[in-house]
C-alpha cells in the first residue's frame, strides 16, 4: 500500500509552499479585486521562472516532463493563496488539452509558449462540450463563445470548432486583430473569464474527428482534478484562518473556540476537507496511472472539494462574526472564490450525473 505523496513530492510541496507564500500573499489577490485587472502578471512571471508552467510539458517543449502529482501539488499551493493567476484557463484547461493531443510542431510550439509565460485559454462549451458555436471554414474560425476562462488575457486560443458538415476540430490560434475578447464582470473578480468573438481567425489544426470528444472529455476531467486540488488548498487555508480566530477571540469570558457551537462546526469542516483530500489524492493517482478511473475520480474529487470549500468559506465568515462580513477581513475572498470554483467547470448537477453513471456502469464488476 502506497497511498501518499513520496518524500520527494512532499519536499517539492514545501518548496512550492514557501514560494507561493512569498510571491502571492492574500494581499495580492485583494489588490487585484480592487483594480480593473483580473490577474497579477508579476506572480505569473515568477511562477514561470520557478518552472510551474513547465511541470508537465515534455522535454522537447522545454518542460520537465513530470507526472500529474507535481502539478496537483502546485495547484493545492496555488489554492492556499487564492493566487490571482490564470491557473484554470491556462494550466488546467489549455495545457492539459495540449497534453492530450498527439505531438506535433503546432502542439509543441504552443506548449513551449505556455512554458515561457504566455497565457492560453480553451474556447469550449463547458456546459455541453459536445456542442460548439465556433465554425471552421477554410482554416478560418468564426463564432462566439460567451464564457471562456482567462480569455481576456490570453495570447493563445485553443478552440473546439465544427465545419459545415458537422466534423469536429480542435484548433490553435494566436491572438490577432480578428479576435475580440471582452472581460466579464464576475462574482469573484480576482478570477477572469471573458467572451470570445472570432471573425475569420486563422486556425492551425491540433486534432480532428471523433478524437476531439475524447480529448475534450479527458481534458475536462483533468481540469476538474486540478481545480479540486486548488479548492482543497483554499479550503484548508480558510479552515486555518477560522481556527486561528476561534483560538484568539473571547466572548463571555471564554475563547470562542472552546464553545462546541464553534468547535464542532470547525471539526465538521476538517472532516469535509479530509474526505476531499483523499478523493483528490485518488484522482491524482487515476490521472497519473489509471485512465479508466479518471471519470469517476474527477467527479468525486470536484463534488467533495466543492462541498468542503463552500462549507468552510461560509463558516469562516460566521466564525469571525461581524468582522467576517467586512471588506477589511479576508473572509470574503474565500467566499467569492468558493462560488467561482463550484461552477467554473459546470455546476454540481453535471458532476453528480457523471458520477452516478460511472457507479451504475461499474456496479457489476
Amino acid at each position, binding site marked *: 500500500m*502506497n497511498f501518499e505523496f513520496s518524500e520527494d513530492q512532499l519536499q517539492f510541496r514545501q518548496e512550492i509552499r514557501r514560494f507561493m507564500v512569498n510571491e502571492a500573499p492574500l494581499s495580492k489577490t485583494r489588490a487585484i479585486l480592487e483594480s480593473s485587472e483580473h490577474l497579477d502578471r508579476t506572480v505569473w512571471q515568477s511562477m514561470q521562472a520557478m518552472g510551474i508552467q513547465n511541470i508537465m510539458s515534455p522535454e522537447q517543449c522545454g518542460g520537465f516532463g513530470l507526472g500529474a502529482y507535481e502539478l496537483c501539488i502546485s495547484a493545492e499551493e496555488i489554492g492556499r493563496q487564492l493566487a490571482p493567476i490564470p491557473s484554470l484557463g491556462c494550466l488546467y484547461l489549455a495545457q492539459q488539452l495540449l497534453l492530450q493531443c498527439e505531438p506535433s510542431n503546432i502542439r509543441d510550439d504552443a506548449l513551449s509558449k505556455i512554458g515561457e509565460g504566455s497565457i492560453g485559454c480553451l474556447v469550449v462549451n463547458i456546459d455541453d462540450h459536445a456542442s460548439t458555436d465556433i465554425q471552421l471554414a477554410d482554416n478560418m474560425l468564426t463564432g462566439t463563445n460567451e464564457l471562456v476562462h482567462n480569455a481576456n488575457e490570453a495570447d493563445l486560443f485553443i478552440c473546439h470548432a465544427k465545419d459545415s458538415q458537422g466534423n469536429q476540430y480542435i484548433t490553435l490560434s494566436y491572438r490577432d486583430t480578428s479576435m475580440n475578447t471582452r472581460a466579464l464582470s464576475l462574482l469573484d473578480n480576482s478570477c477572469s473569464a471573458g467572451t470570445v468573438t472570432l471573425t475569420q481567425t486563422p486556425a492551425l489544426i491540433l486534432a480532428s474527428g471523433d478524437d476531439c470528444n475524447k480529448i475534450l472529455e479527458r481534458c475536462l476531467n483533468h481540469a476538474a482534478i486540478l481545480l479540486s486540488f486548488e479548492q482543497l488548498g483554499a479550503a484548508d487555508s480558510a479552515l486555518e484562518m477560522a481556527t486561528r480566530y476561534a483560538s484568539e477571540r473571547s466572548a463571555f469570558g471564554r475563547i470562542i*473556540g472552546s464553545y462546541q457551537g464553534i468547535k*464542532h462546526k470547525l471539526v465538521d469542516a476538517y472532516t469535509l476537507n*479530509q474526505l476531499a483530500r483523499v478523493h483528490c489524492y485518488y484522482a491524482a493517482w487515476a490521472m497519473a496511472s489509471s485512465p479508466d478511473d479518471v471519470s469517476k475520480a474527477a467527479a468525486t474529487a470536484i463534488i467533495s472539494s466543492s462541498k468542503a470549500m463552500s462549507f468552510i468559506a461560509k463558516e469562516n465568515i460566521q466564525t469571525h462574526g461581524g468582522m467576517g462580513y467586512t471588506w477589511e477581513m479576508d473572509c470574503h475572498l474565500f467566499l467569492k472564490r468558493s462560488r467561482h470554483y463550484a461552477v467554473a467547470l459546470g455546476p454540481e448537477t453535471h458532476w453528480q450525473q457523471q458520477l452516478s453513471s460511472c457507479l451504475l456502469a461499474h456496479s457489476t464488476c
Partner: protein
Amino acid sequence: MDFKDTPEEAIFRTECAQWLATHATPKSAGQHQTFDSLAERISASRAWQATKAANGFGAITWPKALGGRGGSPIQEVIFREEEAKYNVPASVFNVSLGMVIPSLLVHGSDEVRARYVAPALQGKELWCQLLSEPNAGSDLGMIRTQAKRCEDGRDGWIISGQKVWTSFAQFAEFGMVLTRTDPDQAKFAGMTSFFVDMQTPGIEIRPIRQANGQEEFNEVFFNDVYVPDEQRVGDIGNGWRVTMTALMNERLSIGGVLPADLWQKLARNIQSQHRAVNDQSILNRLNEIYIHAHGLWLMQCRGLTALGQGKEPGPELSVAKIIAAKTLSDYCELMMDLEGSKGLLSAAEHGSHWQLIEDLWYGAAGIRIAGGTDEIVKNNVGERVLGLPPEPRLDKGKTFRELVSN
C-alpha cells in the same frame, strides 16, 4: 502512489489466503453469518480463535514469546482483509485481545501474565472490561464503584458498586474492573484497577435488552465482592493509566470499518429498478454513500501507508467513526427506500439476505455512541487536531468526594 502490496506484504497475504482456504469456507457475495443465539455466536468465535491461535494467526502483532506472530500492524490488517472473505464468526475477542490483555502485559505481574495470556489467546477465556457506570459514561472519571481495603485481616479488597454497558459479561470468564479507592483525591487520581473472575460470589450480571432486541451488553453489580490484592493491576491510584493503556490499543481497530462492496450492492439494486435509475435524487444519495464509503477506505489506505512506513497514522482517521456511522445509516435507509412501502418489513418477511441491512441499520445508531459519542469525538478532534481550547471544566481542582456531593 499505488494500492498494491509490497513484495513482502504480497507474500504474507498469500500465506494468509492459503491458510484460510484450508481452514474456512469462502463467503458467497453479500453473505453474512448469522447465529440462532448469542451463546452460539460466542462458542463459534471461541472455536475459530482457538484454530487461529493454534496456527500462529491468533494475535498477529504480539511477540512470539507470548504465542503471537511477531508481525507488523500492516500484517494484522492484511490478515483481517483476507479473513473477511471467509465465512467465519465475527470476533468477540476484540476487548480481550485488543484491550485488556495488552494492558495486563504492561501493568500486570509476571505471574499474572504467565497464567492468563495464553488461555485468552486460545479463546478459552473471554475477558470483559468493566468501565462505564450509570453516572459515568463519556465522563468516565466519575465512576463510583468502590474498592475498600479488607478490615478483617485478609490481604484484599471489597468491591461494591454497579457497572453498565459491559459487552459479553454474561459469557466472560474474567473482567478488568476500574474502581475508586480514594475519593479524597482528584477524580482521575484516586482510581485502581483489578481483574476478577466473573464467577466470584457477589457479582451479579443482568443482560440489557438493546434497541435491536439483542442482549450483548450487561449491567454488572458488585455486591461486596472480595478480591485478593494479587488481582490488583498496577499501583494503587494508577487505575486511570491502566485503563488508558487499554483504550489506546483501540487504534488498531483501523481496518474493516465498512463492508467494501457496500456501494456496489446498492448500485446493483438501483439498476434493477427502472424508476430508481432515472431518479437523480436517488442517484445523488448513491453518490454520497459512495463518496463516504470510498473516502473511508482511502483514509484507511493512507493510515496503512503510514503504518507500512513505520509511522503513526495521521489524525484524519479519528473522524472515521463519525463518517462510518452516518454512511451505514444512509446506506440501510436507501436500501429500505428502494423497497417502496415494503421497506418497513423486517428480515423475517424479506428473507435472510435482509438480516445484514437490519443489523447495520440498528447498529449505526449504536456506533454513534459506542467508544466515544460523536460529540466527544468532535471535542477530541477539535482540541487535539485543530488545537482549539478545551471547554472550561467545573471539575478541576476538586476531589471526587467534593464533585459527588454537589
